[in-house]
């Protein structure tokens, strides 16, 4: 009996997966709340409870994510970009390009048939390149984050944002609201702005089909549409896109095959 755990401790949400013994992966997610150690402990405990397993049943754990560096080094840590590539390669063996829209940043990953990273670019120090941009805009428009995708798809005349900066775009969105622009049109403009920004990175990295979209941003149907229109490709979107990196971590835990999970994370 071999079970493997992957923990992706992100800046806003922590995601975990247990795989093994031919069973479908078991998923769990909770907010990180800026206490990454507590989040990792809670995530691991709740995940084990969900799977009806004990800590000692886990053969190996890999921990990853934006905030994994803040945790004590009791598990093997692997860079989240590598885990993301492994996760996508597992789900879509034909994928050669990944657009990963996380809360803090967006990044483009090129990968080999084996799921190894052959190139990557990130949006770096810019809030307009990640999911946070969508959260800010949802907040301004007083729309639930889960609703912005369906609303955006109803747009008739998307607003064009003149800036690529999240702070200025926030002001611009407020101005458009004051001018009477429809929320749907503003949201479609937001999706186009984010897609434009990350598509420029795709161009730099080189787009090779198939192209997968993952991260929390891939839950947003408006963003998927914007990317597909901008890039002219059909994107491969996982059913649980926000768990891809955790899945890759669990897969890499399986590759290590070491039993190192005898302590609390």
């Amino acid at each position, binding site marked *: 009996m071999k079970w493997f755990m992957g923990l992706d401790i992100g800046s806003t949400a922590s995601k975990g997966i247990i795989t093994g013994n031919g069973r479908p992966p078991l998923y769990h997610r909770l907010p990180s709340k800026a206490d990454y150690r507590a989040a990792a402990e809670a995530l691991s405990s709740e995940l084990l409870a969900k799977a009806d397993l004990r800590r000692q049943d886990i053969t190996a754990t890999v921990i990853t994510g934006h905030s994994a*560096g803040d945790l004590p080094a009791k598990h093997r840590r*692997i*860079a*989240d*970009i*590598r885990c993301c590539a492994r996760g996508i390669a597992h789900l879509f063996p034909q994928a050669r390009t990944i657009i990963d829209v996380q809360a803090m940043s967006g990044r483009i990953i090129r990968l*080999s048939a084996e799921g*190894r*990273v*052959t*190139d*990557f*670019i*990130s949006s*770096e*120090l810019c809030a307009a390149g990640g999911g946070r941009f969508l959260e800010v805009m949802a907040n301004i428009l007083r729309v639930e984050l889960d609703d912005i995708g369906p609303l955006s798809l109803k747009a008739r005349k998307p607003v064009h944002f003149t800036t690529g900066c999240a702070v200025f775009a926030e002001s611009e969105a407020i101005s458009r609201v004051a001018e009477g622009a429809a929320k749907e049109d503003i949201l479609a403009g937001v999706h186009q702005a984010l897609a434009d920004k990350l598509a420029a990175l795709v161009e*730099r990295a080189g787009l090779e089909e198939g192209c997968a979209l993952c991260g929390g941003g891939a839950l947003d149907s408006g963003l998927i549409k914007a990317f597909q229109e901008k890039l002219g490709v059909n994107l491969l979107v996982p059913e649980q896109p926000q768990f891809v990196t955790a899945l890759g971590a669990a897969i890499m835990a399986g590759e290590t095959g070491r039993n190192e999970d005898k302590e609390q994370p």
Partner: protein
Amino acid sequence: MTEKKRPINRLKSMYPLRGLIDGMYRQGLSAAAEGKPVAWCMVNWWQGDPILKAMDVATIYPEDYGAVCAAFGAAQGYLERSAADGFPSHMCGYARNCLGYTGRMMDAGGIPEEAPMGGMPRPTLLLGSGSLCDARYKWFQSLGRYFDAPLWVLELPHPGVKEGLTPGAHETNISFIVAQLGEFVTFLENLLGKKMNRDRLDEITTDTVEMNNWWHKVNELRRARPGPMHSRDFWSSMPASLYMAADPGQTAGLYRRMYDEIKERVDNKVSAINTTEKYRLAFLELPPWHSLGFFDKLAERGWNFVIESWAYHPPRPIDLNGVTDPLERLARYSYHWLTGYYRQAYDAGEWWGYFAYPYLEYVRDYQCDGVVLHPLLSCRTATNHLTLVADRLMKKLKVPSLVIEGDIVDLKLFDPAGALTKAETFEETMDHYKKVRKEAGFSW
């Protein structure tokens, strides 16, 4: 108790070279105290420094002082001061550090107490340079807000590769440089009220070329496997040449000692890192001076930085025999530093980017597995060619590049934890391209 080895195996011969920079600041302070002339200079690639030395002017380089302040953790205060004076944060970090320092100096009525290395004394004159960097045109001019000092700007023509190879262009540019160096001498003679000793200039010029020839030989040895000298030693030793920190004859002797030490390492296959050399890398552009410990962490992973940006390297040797006028020798030498790769770039069909071409040679000759690009968020000159370099290295040599954004002075712009995460991922990329190069028939 056994002493734990440090990740980077520093060269013993580096320390005296680094010490010359300390001496340069001390000499500046002594000269100011004795009422002797002191110049604040910009890096001018040996165009004007030998002339200042021949005129017994003590020299200090605010660009180097920016690196010093960053390394000592003193830069943030000067950056904040320059921001308070209205200089925007996207301006050159070295310039902002200098302007902030100068603001503090004028407030304090002398060198501010917190100034590292004893500080920079108020200058008698300013020597600017129009070479490479546009910010430098306005930076020294902006110092006029704080104090009055005469400013001379040396120009170095920057033709494109094709234009530089146009028949007659080379000699026209040399004549231009020689003429302006002559005018610079006249300016100094009028300012200081004395004549320049041309024999002394002749001697300094000869020693300068000799100094750089040894420095060049040092860097040639670094092609060896394992790489015998880490970039950190390069950056510590570079200012002795680039800023002509001491008498060039003395510096030449120290580079020769460094050559001997590295030769011994090469003969005995001693590495610059105390872990097995897994990856050989080039570092493009200046490093984050405030976070040099970052390279220790990479060395622990087996990353050996074996070469750096060509613009901070000495020119390849040039035959100046038969050129008797020292001003002409200086002109030919500094112009050669800039244009020394033009012919090869043109022949290789890489004529459109003289800034990028030398890296194709470096990465091939030093057999690099990867390149770390360090776009400096406050420096356009150091940044705008980097994506071109990455593109050419991939297309021509199948060598990947890692982008780590940061700044030479402003530590707020650098994310060491994020950079290390990227580094881990980049190892996978370098491994992939090792296989690709092998399949394509490359030798490394």
